């Protein structure tokens, strides 16, 4: 029993790792631009398909592919900002609708290019760290956990220690006052989109060898990500990380000890309970909720 708990804990940690990468990007984009990026799950999907295209089909070294996935999806994010969100800046509903349209375009393009069936990604590493008979951690999962810690730490350092990091936080807190400091919203929105999209892309690229890669894989991720950012408090990056961890643990444990459908229901209940007890989310403040 103890072993099962530890094993489930490790599984949850892995889920928490890639969920936080996705949720943090979503929160960052919402914070700076006021737009709910419904296409975020599809950016995750694109990251996975970069691996399908380059690693599975052309055997480009995996590390290089992951880096390319990060940069490529980041650039797709910048293009989204420029082509859609910038033009719809005073129109949050328009931004939301545009992101839903873009989500469908991405799904259609990927389906046309790669087919709608599950794509096969050969394992990058077969190695498994064996703690005991029933506690094992595949190295690919460890890579996801370590990468998430690394990227989130880097993001935190960027936001708190650099000039553009302050600019991003300032824009998220008061866009007009930020403009009065000479901070261009076009610039901060572009940076936020690049970071948010590239984190979703790297999450997709890192998990691709572990999950079923298909054009609709963004769905389940985006639902979970929304629960996470609502639980965490819509404007809060720390809240998003903490809520991703809480959600991943609850979801993984319920899946293991009951089943996946019940886990989805429990996840939604978790969100409801938080909304009833603290409508702004665990870390949220009223003005952003």
């Amino acid at each position, binding site marked *: 029993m103890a072993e099962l708990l530890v094993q489930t804990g490790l599984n949850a940690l892995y889920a928490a790792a890639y969920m936080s990468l996705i949720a943090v990007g979503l929160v960052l984009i919402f914070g700076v631009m006021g737009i709910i990026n419904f296409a975020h799950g599809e950016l995750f999907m694109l990251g996975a398909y970069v691996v399908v295209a380059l690693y599975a089909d052309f055997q480009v070294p995996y590390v290089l592919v992951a880096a390319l996935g990060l940069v490529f999806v980041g650039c797709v994010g910048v293009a989204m900002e420029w082509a859609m969100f910038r033009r719809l800046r005073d129109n949050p509903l328009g931004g939301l609708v545009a992101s839903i349209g873009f989500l469908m375009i991405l799904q259609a393009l990927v389906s046309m290019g790669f087919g709608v069936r599950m794509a096969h990604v050969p394992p990058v590493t077969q190695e498994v760290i064996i703690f005991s008979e029933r506690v094992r951690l595949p190295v690919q999962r460890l890579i996801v956990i370590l990468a998430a810690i690394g990227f989130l730490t880097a993001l935190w350092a960027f936001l708190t220690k650099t000039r553009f990091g302050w600019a991003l936080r*300032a824009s998220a*807190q008061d866009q007009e006052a930020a403009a*009065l400091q000479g901070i261009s919203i076009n610039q901060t929105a572009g940076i936020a989109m690049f970071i948010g999209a590239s984190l979703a892309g790297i999450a997709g690229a890192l998990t691709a060898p572990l999950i079923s890669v298909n054009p609709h894989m963004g769905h389940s991720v985006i639902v979970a990500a929304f629960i996470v950012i609502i639980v965490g408090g819509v404007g809060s990056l720390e809240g998003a990380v903490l809520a991703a961890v809480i959600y991943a643990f609850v979801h993984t444990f319920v899946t293991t000890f009951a089943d996946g459908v019940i886990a989805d229901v429990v996840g939604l209940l978790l969100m409801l309970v938080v909304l009833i007890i603290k409508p702004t989310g665990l870390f949220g403040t009223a003005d952003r909720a």
Partner: protein
Amino acid sequence: MLLEMKRASVNYGSVSAIRDISLAVPEGGIVTIIGGNGAGKTTTLRAISGLARVGAGEIHFNGERIDKLSVDKIVGRGIAHVPEGRRVFPDLTVEENLRTGAFLRRDKPAVEADLESVYGRFSRLRERRKQLAKTMSGGEQQMLAIGRALMSKPKLLLLDEPSMGLAPVIVEDIARIIEEIKGQGVPVVLVEQNAELALDLADYAYVLETGTLALEGPAAELHDNAHVRAAYLGV
């Protein structure tokens, strides 16, 4: 003239906020804009810094037309705007707030020196440099907002109701600071509902009423003007 607004009008949708406003700010003085609620004072400042778009008319700064530039470009030209309600960044620390004021500056050593001089002027800010701005009192937040604006090393400072909601002793502090800023050669456009304070500090004054210019003249003259005394000074 450092700044010239020529027959500027601003509309919010179909609502006209200011009409046909002309004003001029010379080098090194304090110009004040007074007027009642909704007279268009804030809108006038917002037009200068680019937050509001002028529908008609022109604004020139240092000989260059600026009314079509984006806000960050206008800030880059040397106009710092302390907005109504202070608008400090609530979840940044005091020091981070001050540093965002220097966002466009590349002269690092000078930025550090200016940070020191802001701390020298506002010792409360130095004591609280690591504190989040939202935990500061109203007066401290006003000092922070002014300090943040000074960090951009402005050629012109726009202040929107710096005395709003502050206790009389704090208002005196703010008045002293505005005079010091003028003393250092930075011209100030001061918007105030506190006409007594504004006319005391300013060299030249404009009176706005329902979006149009009602009166203008040297501050001392307006101070003695019968209409101004009755309408704004309550005597």
